[in-house]
């Protein structure tokens, strides 16, 4: 459409607001409350414009552009009105920094610091010089504030992790409130109180920690003033440059921007244009990348064991010791645990190293079995394949969403944002499981009882058949119908819930089904996946399998193409070897459970951070972290991206590629090496079909893995209809469902290193039904011991009504062998006792 702004004819597409249209045309209109990613608010009134034919002023941010409109943005009347409005805003905002005559010289001379007795902004403001309000004052041309200044004297809130809240600097634009509600779906914040006491706050003004905040940092990033600032980022010195990286923490692979000064990373922020996160991140990506790159605990130089003690050594000395020890162990006596959160280039070299020097069965990552290997097992066992490769943004277009036994807000925060967006567009959420954020936004909920997951899946399939779902063209439909009995062995309230869920899913198409490796764990895991597949066919639904670890999907493709066992399976074999003490030497380059007394006689540790395993090693090699190595990463969508190293390695650390090259040379294979990362990537492309057509120079927004193999015609898979729900063998025994809460980055465990993050994540809790707690005689917050056969774990009791009687749930980090063994079993009968 065509419209005129300030005598310029402008052509716009779509249905923009006047503010959007003006910005497209490069006509500046000041605004403090508007954000392109938020709904119009019209709160600050700075974007008022004059529209011909209307006798009032209209806020450009909330007025849709219309054909033929004639708009003026800077008439003398508007300019003076804007100044007055801004003055009113500034009357309650310490504004010495904005209008002080000495503001340009202050930085050098600090002449004003002695003149002010109270916080008036300026030198004490954390965002001075980098403040949107200052920029708007500049744009509006305000040079004095005639109104008396009002200091509201709110107490600065410093009780929460990661950031401070100083509402004395707040201008009540409401961006934080809106991003928390509209984008994050958390709604932790609101305007509270009234009139001159109005502020942003939580319910009952409690700390954010007690208000359901996940500390994603979105509010900090949208704040136009210094009211919300990251605590660890001091105002000076500022970053000199920024570099784009892919966040390595989890499989969603957010695009992050690192603020760098010299060789130090000062902060990490989500990049506004990056996919799939579009300017959003989570607590780890936003606040814990800097700590993962530096900070205490980083291994800075090589060490070797001398006279029983680890002492610093030169790189050559360490390599020599490592090579000698590995060679001495012999071909059959060596094992390699490689990291699962490294670039494809480094992972490839690790696998090449493993192929050259070890038995393939002795090469694995210690990462828990991924959803990709579970889907592959489904293909092998039942002959159907889930073609992966959907973009997370496709969730937004769905009419209904089934979140299957998964905690999206915690484990897949970006996927959760897409679900929130879909719900805001009218989609209906069916929450199966106990995740509270999903339940609070759900149109229907399903209980997924520990041990009876497949039964719930089967029940839902049967309910869908009853609502008349009958897709044509797929084989096996008649068999499926026969195997789903009409009157199922489920109770009537469960039947009603299943029926309600089935009706929502059939009447709001397309449906999306979201699940992760948790669905495939436990004895009935493969049946559960088969039922999810059948449900997807019945509904014509989109399946969204979600990975967990950074680059998990890419490394899975590598393992497959190079003939290594998939994650989980490889570990099983290696774990058995450790138990039998089959290895003389272990090259431990990835994170692994504390090996304790299963440690082989010779241990080489390679990594970024000290750990119990590192301290027990004979040789320690300092490795580069993700931002120091760069490389190619594949996220859960199959999006492939390559980024260069952003900062140099600290101390004497080297990239995994360099270390492997040196070690291989010392061990007599000079050909195995790393001439340069680009050459390694070229080699990967010739060996891995899914990456054959990937071009790292192609645009930078990321290309996708080719869908490997042929999946044939989809058909229903035969699977036994479960006869009833699993029950514990005897009274007093509780079926414990073990989930994975691993959210470390290679050797960096944010739970151990960040007290703030531990407060947010609350590790080591076990969720029990209140009735069971009563019977055992425990209350919320008690320290418990969970025991099963030889193993035992400690946990803190949490009473949770949504947990079924006779079952309990916990999430483990797999940092000890017991935790890891329990996780692999998925479902364990345990006795629960209060710890004395």
């Amino acid at each position, binding site marked *: 459409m065509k419209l005129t702004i300030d005598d310029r004819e402008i052509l716009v597409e779509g249905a923009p607001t006047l503010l959007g249209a003006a910005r497209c045309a490069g006509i500046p209109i000041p605004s403090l409350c508007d954000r392109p990613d938020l709904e119009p608010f019209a709160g600050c009134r700075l974007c008022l414009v004059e529209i011909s034919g209307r006798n009032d002023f209209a806020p450009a941010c909330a007025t849709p552009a219309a054909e033929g409109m004639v708009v003026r943005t800077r008439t003398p009347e508007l300019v003076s009105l804007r100044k007055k409005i801004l003055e009113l805003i500034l009357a309650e905002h310490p504004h010495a920094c904005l209008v002080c005559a000495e503001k340009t010289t202050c930085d050098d001379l600090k002449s004003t610091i002695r003149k002010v007795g109270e916080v008036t902004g300026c030198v004490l403001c954390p965002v001075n010089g980098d403040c949107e309000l200052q920029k708007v004052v500049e744009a509006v041309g305000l040079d004095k504030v005639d109104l008396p200044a009002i200091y509201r004297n709110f107490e600065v809130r410093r009780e929460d992790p990661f950031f401070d809240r100083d509402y004395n600097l707040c201008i009540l634009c409401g961006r934080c409130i809106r991003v928390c*509600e509209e984008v994050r779906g958390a*709604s*932790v*914040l*609101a*305007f*509270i*109180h*009234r009139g001159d006491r109005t502020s942003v*706050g*939580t*319910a*009952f003004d409690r700390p954010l920690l007690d*208000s359901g905040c996940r500390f994603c940092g979105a509010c900090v990033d949208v704040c136009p003033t210094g009211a919300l600032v990251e605590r660890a980022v001091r105002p000076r010195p500022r970053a000199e440059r920024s570099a784009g990286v892919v966040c390595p923490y989890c499989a969603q692979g957010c695009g992050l921007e690192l603020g760098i000064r010299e060789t130090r990373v000062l902060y990490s922020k989500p990049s506004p244009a990056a996919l799939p996160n579009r300017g959003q991140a989570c607590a780890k990506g936003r606040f814990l990348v800097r700590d993962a790159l530096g900070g205490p605990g980083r291994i800075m130089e090589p060490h070797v064991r001398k006279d029983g003690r680890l002492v610093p050594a030169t790189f050559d000395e360490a390599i020599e010791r490592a090579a000698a020890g590995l060679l001495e162990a012999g071909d059959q006596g060596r094992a390699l645990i490689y990291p699962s959160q490294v670039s494809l280039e480094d992972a490839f070299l690790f696998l090449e190293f493993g192929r050259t020097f070890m038995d393939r069965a002795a090469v694995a990552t210690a990462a828990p079995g991924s959803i990709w290997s579970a889907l592959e097992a489904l293909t092998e066992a039942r002959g159907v394949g889930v073609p992966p490769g959907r973009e997370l943004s496709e969730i937004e277009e769905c009419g209904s969403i089934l979140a299957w036994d998964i905690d999206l807000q915690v484990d897949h925060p970006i996927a959760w944002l897409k679900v929130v967006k879909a719900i805001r567009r009218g989609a209906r959420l069916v929450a199966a499981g106990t995740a509270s954020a999903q339940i*609070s936004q759900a149109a229907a909920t399903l209980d997924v009882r520990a041990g009876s997951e497949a039964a719930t899946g089967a029940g839902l399939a049967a309910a869908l058949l009853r609502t008349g779902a009958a897709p044509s063209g797929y084989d096996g439909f008649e068999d499926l119908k026969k195997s789903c009995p009409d009157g199922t062995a489920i109770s009537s309230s469960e039947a009603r819930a299943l029926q309600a869920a089935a009706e929502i899913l059939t009447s709001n198409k397309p449906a999306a089904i979201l699940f992760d490796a948790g669905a495939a764990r436990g004895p009935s895991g493969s049946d559960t996946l088969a039922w999810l597949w059948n449900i997807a066919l019945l509904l014509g639904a989109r399946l969204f399998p979600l990975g967990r670890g950074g680059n998990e999907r890419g490394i899975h493709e590598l393992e497959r193409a190079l003939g290594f066992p998939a994650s989980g399976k490889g570990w099983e074999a290696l774990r058995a070897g450790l138990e039998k003490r089959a290895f003389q030497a272990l090259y431990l380059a990835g994170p692994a459970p504390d090996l304790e007394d299963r440690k082989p006689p010779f241990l080489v540790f390679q990594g970024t951070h000290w750990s119990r395993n590192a301290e027990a090693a004979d040789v320690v090699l300092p490795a580069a972290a993700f931002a120091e190595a760069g490389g190619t990463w594949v996220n859960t969508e199959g999006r492939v991206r390559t980024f260069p190293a952003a900062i140099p390695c600290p101390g004497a650390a080297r990239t995994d590629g360099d270390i492997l090259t040196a070690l291989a040379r010392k061990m007599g294979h000079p050909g195995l090496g790393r001439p340069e990362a680009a050459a390694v990537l070229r080699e990967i492309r010739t060996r891995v079909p899914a990456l054959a057509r990937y071009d790292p120079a192609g645009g930078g927004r990321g290309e996708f893995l080719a869908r490997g193999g042929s999946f044939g015609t989809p058909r229903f898979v035969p699977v036994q209809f479960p006869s009833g729900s699993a029950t514990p063998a005897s009274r007093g025994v509780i079926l414990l469902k073990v989930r994975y809460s691993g959210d470390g980055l290679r050797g960096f465990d944010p739970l151990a290193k960040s007290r703030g993050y531990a407060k947010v994540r609350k590790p080591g809790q076990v969720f029990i039904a209140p009735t069971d707690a009563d019977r055992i005689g425990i209350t919320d917050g008690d320290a418990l011991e969970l025991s099963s056969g030889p193993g035992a774990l400690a946990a803190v009791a949490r009473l949770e009504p949504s947990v079924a009687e006779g079952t309990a749930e916990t999430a483990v980090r797999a940092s000890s062998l017991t935790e890891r063994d329990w996780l692999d079993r998925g479902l364990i009968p345990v006795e629960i006792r209060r710890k004395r």
Partner: protein
Amino acid sequence: MCPSKSELEALTEKSTGQKRALIQVLQDIQDRIHWLPAEALEHVARTLGVPLAQVYGVATFYKFFSLEPRGRHVCTVCLGTACHVRGGQALLEHFERKLGIAAGRTTPDGKFTLERVNCLGACALAPLAVVDGRYYGRMSEAKADSVLAGVREDGDP
């Protein structure tokens, strides 16, 4: 005084899932027990599907809602322009002396809450006081004493 769970359920049940019923539901609870305890706000948030922070925002916005326990009898003195001119301020001070509390507070025995209001819109009746929802026009100190005495004798424990 806290409402029981079943009482809260009865007050909110008909509005399950209806966000727009928020103010009405809060009013019903306020009418019933004269204040809004935290558990009540949490129950309303869950039942109506409104985020708790927003419920709290609404509850703190309107002066009508109280987040602290209020007395069983609420006395409100009008200080609008007309009432002010006709001695509203003196009347309020009289109530304060008589009840032994400042405006906005509740007597320690939980019997009376005293409030001031900026205008009740019944300026022809100035000065005006409201006791337990009943409007008393052309209020005087003597009349106030008898109204309070009447309330006191009203079979309260």
